[in-house]
């Protein structure tokens, strides 16, 4: 977590072994959520503030539960019900929170780089919970955790990520993390929604989903963001589903044991058909479960006072 040792702002540039270690720690936390008493006293006396300037259900709930299961005090702050509505700047909002001595700020913001900017105005550790089109590091970590549960290793895996790649912070964080861990990442989506810079990571990019799914061990579908439909970039929902949606026929191109993933929320019948989303290859709800464990591991590492050796 580098200069930002005490923050988790992005996957890009992190050390592979530190991230693997984080996944290992998350294994232990994973068990805690399955016990009758789902709580350990580890972060007693620490304060975590969830600052969500953008809508979110699972990420916010997941961070909140992660903090609470570690006995931290967790406060939720949502952009739509706060002084941000009255015109307060991000800087002033962060400074206001800082005055209450939080230990961790979990920030989701529509602007890329907002969590990084926030680090200038707080002594708390900052976790990026999704910033604009930049990164969503904990999503990538929980995806990697889920893949490791399913496949044990990343070596030799072919992982297809399909959808609106250009606007997806999930795709970006995953492209970095999964290639670091040794998997082969291929991406597919409408040509208008494919960024060029990902090829530099060794990611192969396709304009059709079929060649990406061919022989895949994992098919990760991304949500098609409704707000982008109907414009110049994309035709209609139906058109998208027909060309790019994951259905049984397309899934048959992948390996027999191909794992189906989706970061949620899903648009049933658009990027993924209900029979596939609810099918036995789908681990969509396992991803949600993994999310709490991974975020517990992140909060714990950030609250430790000394860096790892």
């Amino acid at each position, binding site marked *: 977590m580098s200069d930002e040792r005490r923050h988790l702002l992005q996957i890009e540039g992190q050390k592979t072994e530190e991230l693997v*270690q984080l996944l*290992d*720690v998350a*294994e*232990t936390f994973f*068990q*805690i959520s399955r*016990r*009758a*008493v789902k*709580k*350990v*006293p*580890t*972060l*007693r*006396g*620490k304060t975590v503030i969830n600052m969500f300037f953008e809508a979110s259900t699972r990420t916010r709930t997941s961070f909140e539960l992660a903090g609470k299961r*570690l006995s931290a005090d967790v406060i939720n702050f949502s952009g739509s019900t706060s002084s941000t509505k009255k015109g307060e700047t991000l800087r002033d909002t962060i400074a206001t929170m800082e005055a209450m001595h939080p230990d961790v700020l979990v920030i989701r913001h529509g602007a890329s780089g907002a969590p990084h900017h926030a680090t200038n105005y707080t002594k708390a550790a900052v976790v990026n919970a999704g910033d604009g089109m930049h990164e969503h590091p904990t999503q990538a970590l929980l995806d990697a955790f889920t893949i490791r549960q399913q496949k044990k290793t990343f070596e030799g895996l072919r992982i297809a990520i399909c959808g609106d790649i250009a606007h997806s912070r999930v795709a970006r964080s995953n492209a970095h993390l999964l290639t670091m861990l040794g998997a082969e990442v291929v991406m597919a989506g409408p040509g208008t929604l494919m960024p060029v810079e990902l090829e530099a990571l060794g990611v192969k990019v396709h304009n059709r989903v079929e060649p990406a799914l061919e022989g895949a061990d994992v098919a990760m579908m991304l949500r098609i963001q409704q707000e982008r439909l109907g414009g110049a970039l994309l035709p209609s929902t139906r058109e998208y589903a027909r060309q790019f949606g994951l259905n049984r026929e397309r899934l048959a191109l992948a390996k027999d044991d191909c794992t189906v993933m989706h970061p949620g929320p899903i648009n049933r019948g658009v990027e993924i058909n209900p029979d596939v989303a609810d099918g036995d290859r789908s681990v969509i709800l396992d991803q949600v479960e993994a999310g709490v464990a991974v975020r517990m*591991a992140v909060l*714990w*590492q950030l*609250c*430790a*006072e*000394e860096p*790892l*050796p």
Partner: protein
Amino acid sequence: MGDRDVLVAPDAVAEGLERIAKEIIDREPDDEVFLVGIRRGGEPVAQHLARAIGRRTGRIVKVGLVDITLYRDDAATALPSPRIGPSHVPFAIERQRVVLVDDVLYTGRTIRAALDALLDFGRPRRIELCVIADRGGRELPIQPDYLVAKTDVDDGQRVEVTVSDERFQVVSTPKK
């Protein structure tokens, strides 16, 4: 091994553990007892004791494990250890008799943490404590119910239990 002194030799530890197995049974001969080892040092000791008790009673003694990392009173400031392992208590401890097992008893803080960890799995009828070596230096009011040996070392020494081939011995080495 240079400056490593053997405080309690393997034979004496083995004899002590046999005596403890009998004491544990004698205290409540008719009721089932569960052993819970504290990771990582207590784990092989608990396994060994379970076999010793089993040989005497003819019943299989169940063994659980607790990892105390997350329950330490300095957990938030300690280094996150990639070696924290899961606690594993594969039986319901509710209303049961449990013997907590560790290798060395020192400040008592590990035991305090282990009690908290164990109580998150349920409410046992009674928890007893068994250790191989008690080196003194307690910082909390915690004492063992079953003990192989007290050791007499000064603060600069570290007391450890080493194990090979199910043979335990208590040694002291200089603290780094």
